[in-house]
């Protein structure tokens, strides 16, 4: 079968620059009602630009059509299954989008007086309070604009805590199954990453941990459930060992979806954690942001939280009950220019209220149920390196398929031909040919059954007709792209050729 003939006609959309024609424009202004100015006169010759930036020139219908055609080349959650492991691609409720567009939120300037922004401040305070209740942490700062930013804030808090006790310490332990942001963030906070191997069950090797901790251990960063979809069942021991040498225990909240209403990390000994509002709390991923990565801590660390924390004091002043609290002399400071990604917080807050306590618990239950159902149905067709019930996600290996020359990447690409997004591939690094699958609770059994059928078909194709799989995708707008060329002949901004 030929890939090219199956592709729809409308595939290569010119760049916006190629669609430009001189003299067109897509937006108009009211007539200027004050005297005009001459830039050379008011700014001086030496400050002024010779020629205006070479922006494209198009009318509104042309611009809208261009971006709509681009949109149609994307896979997205509203269209189909998106089982990217550790990314929690759940459905994004529409009402959340609508309430985040209320002008009372979108047009509110952050420099407006506290008395004039009580609604927004109350929302932030309440969201932080709910996140604390869900996680068992004592206080939450909503400042970090993304998960990685939350990790950086967390590691700086660890540093500030130890510095206050006389020695910042030098090492932070991370499991070999950790996300790459963990070692990158702790490095930025001045720490050295010490990698700890996973044991044969995919969990932190507790004996090894006992050997490597010492008085220079500032913290351990743990994703729980971890990226293999396994709950760290010896977490109590792990926490005890690290606390035993005076270290702190950080939880990467990327997989919090599995724990909602089941385990509160703060209650079982974690000292601090970040949340991903764009994973657990349903705010959309937006094709790669904006996210939001609040950081929560237990009581001994509250002084160090990034400021401002949104505080409440009914007696503060006339018309002001909620306010941004900057009076935190031990705070690590700001990690975002203002309050973080406010509109993302609006959506997460709406989500929590819509679900309530019972609904949040059912999120976790159904995320686990869906993952275990998929794992059970697929383990006969793909290698399952870590056996037993999984949590919200699991990792398969395409090692059996590799015998026929089919790699995890090929399986991923072939899935695209069936209107399903690929799982996360080649991660975690400790599983060869990894396919990491997270269905989330918002998929129906029908949608899971479709995925199972497709995966089994691909396993069969891998044996009977591997060329179809290694040559995939053939039904997408473009076929496999030349990444070597992209890297060698760097073309990252358009020029007329």
């Amino acid at each position, binding site marked *: 079968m030929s890939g090219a003939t199956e592709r729809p006609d409308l595939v*290569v959309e010119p760049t*916006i620059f190629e669609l430009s024609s001189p003299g067109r424009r897509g937006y108009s202004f009211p007539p*200027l*009602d*004050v005297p005009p*100015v001459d830039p050379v006169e008011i700014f001086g010759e030496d400050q002024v*630009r010779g020629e*205006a930036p*070479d*922006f494209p020139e198009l009318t*509104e219908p042309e611009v*809208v059509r261009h*971006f709509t055609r*681009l949109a149609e080349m994307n*896979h997205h959650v509203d269209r189909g299954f998106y089982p990217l492991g550790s*990314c929690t691609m759940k459905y994004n409720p529409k009402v959340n*989008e609508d*309430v985040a567009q209320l002008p009372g939120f979108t047009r509110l300037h*952050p420099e407006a007086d506290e008395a004039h922004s009580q609604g927004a401040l109350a929302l932030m305070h309440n969201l932080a309070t709910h996140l604390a*209740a869900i996680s068992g942490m004592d206080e939450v700062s909503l400042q970090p*604009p*993304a*998960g990685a930013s939350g990790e*950086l804030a967390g590691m*700086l808090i660890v540093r500030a805590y130890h510095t206050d006790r006389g020695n910042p310490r030098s090492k932070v332990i991370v499991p070999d199954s950790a996300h790459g942001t963990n*070692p990158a963030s702790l490095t*930025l906070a*001045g*720490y050295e*990453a010490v990698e700890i191997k996973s044991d044969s069950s995919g969990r932190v090797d507790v004996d090894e941990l006992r050997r490597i901790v010492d008085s220079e251990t500032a913290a351990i960063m743990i994703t729980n459930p971890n990226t293999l979809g396994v709950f760290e069942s010896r977490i*109590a021991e792990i926490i005890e060992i690290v606390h035993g040498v005076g270290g702190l225990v950080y939880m990467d909240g990327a997989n919090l979806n599995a724990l909602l209403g*089941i*385990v509160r990390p703060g209650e079982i000994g974690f000292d601090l954690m970040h949340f991903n509002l764009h994973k657990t709390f349903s705010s959309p991923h*937006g*094709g*790669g*942001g904006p996210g939001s990565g609040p950081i929560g801590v237990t009581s001994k660390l509250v002084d160090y939280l990034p400021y401002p924390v949104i505080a409440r004091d009914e007696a503060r002043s006339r018309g002001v009950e909620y306010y941004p609290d900057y009076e935190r002399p031990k705070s690590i*400071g700001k990690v*975002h*220019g*203002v*309050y973080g990604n406010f509109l993302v917080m609006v959506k997460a807050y709406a989500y929590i*209220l819509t679900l*309530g306590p019972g609904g949040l*618990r059912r999120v976790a239950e*159904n995320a686990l*149920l*869906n993952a275990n159902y998929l794992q*059970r149905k697929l383990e006969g067709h793909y290698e399952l390196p870590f056996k037993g*019930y999984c949590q919200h996600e699991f990792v398969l290996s395409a090692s059996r398929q590799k015998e026929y020359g089919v790699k995890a990447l090929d399986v991923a690409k072939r899935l695209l031909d069936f209107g399903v997004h690929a799982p996360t591939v080649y991660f975690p690094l400790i599983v060869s040919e990894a396919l990491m699958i997270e269905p989330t*609770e918002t998929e*129906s059994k029908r949608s899971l059954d479709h995925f199972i059928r497709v995966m089994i078909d691909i396993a069969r194709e891998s044996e009977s007709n591997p060329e179809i799989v290694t040559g995939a995708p053939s039904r*997408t*707008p*473009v*076929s496999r*792209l*030349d990444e070597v060329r992209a890297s060698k002949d*760097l073309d990252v*901004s358009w020029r007329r050729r």
Partner: protein
Amino acid sequence: MPYVPNTDEDRREMLREIGAESFDDLIAGIPRELRMGSDLDVPGPLSELELTRHMQHLAAMNRVPDDVISFLGGGIYDHATAAAVGHITGLPHFYTAYTPYQAEVSQGTLQAIYEFQSLIARLTGFDVANASLYDGATAGAEAVLMATAISRRKKVLVSSTANPALRSVLKTYLMATDLELVEIPMDSGVTDVAALEAELENAGAVLVQHPNFLGLLEPVDQIGAIVSESGAPLIASVDPVSLALLKPPSEYGATIAIGEAQSLGVAVAFGGPLLGFIAAGRKHARRMPGRIIGATNDAEGRRGYVMTLQTREQHIRREKATSNICTNQGLVALAATVQMSLLGRAGLVELALQVAAKTRYAAEQLSLVRGIKLKFDGAFFREFVIELPFEAGTAKEALSDAGIWPGIKCGCYYDDMPNCLLVSVTERHSREDIDSLVSGLEAIIVSRGV
């Protein structure tokens, strides 16, 4: 449960297939003593109708332009956004998609970001821009880390006329590094060039904002010349709207340009999400933080786009990555791309000229009021500082009742400017809006008998 499709019957059947007696079997790996003993202490559940009412109530507690005439700016500006922008960013194809890891089914997101990068490159005069950063403040911190990686020197000079939010975030980012942060004082509202020159020896990065936080144009030619000579990379923090009229950073010796692009099609939204950008010359592409999209071709020769230079990033290089950043501000960058495309070359220039004209009109009218003077003499764009005969907060409070917010109190950021207000004007302000500000302030001054 509107968002969970499994029925009780589905659950029973799935558990049977799994071979589990009950849900409890699935969480057998979680020791009992670690599980919660009570329900979550959060409110809800709310129906869609109840939720909407509650959110409308919260939104109505905030006061926004249309209720008031606001001259608040300071890095975040209330420009009009073209109607089409929201319709494009509201397409689920864009907002419900993830990071474009599978390029073959993400060409829409990838090409849109490539176009964003191209537009930022054209504004700044550089070859390479990334897919965006969280905001202008974190872009400043990332740029300093990038610049010192290029220069391999430890001293970081930042002008005190740069946005206080940027300086604050920079302090946080540098607190655990071996970099030394030195603030350069101001002279007449702009960077004190003599003080800068005195600190340049062995400097590893210099950050200057132009136009600066107080709205004033910096002597960038002079700064560019002395910084270039010192060998330190110059980071120019720039306002993209101003670049319709002002010389791009590439022309005055900057090595890196950064800034906040919220002013191009993004709501003020209580300060987030915002849109940071960073651009530099091609030879520094591998030092750049964050995601970069590149053009290439597919197996059959069609043009297509991929994430490129990924070896810089944390998911591959882990602790040796150029930055810990993972996500960008994808959807926000899309909004700005659509807005810039609609404005086009002529629209961008007209926007900047309207802002310049209205700001100038406002400054002139205010300076005619007895008791008000312009704090600084230099040329300015989009905002300016006025000095009142009394503490600026007094004027703010008094005018608030009349529905006018005259600007930001400079005293919050600079101790020696207690009587000053930073007044910001956009194309949204009509002449009448500006005239009401002028008459409002005049009335207060008169009533106080100053």
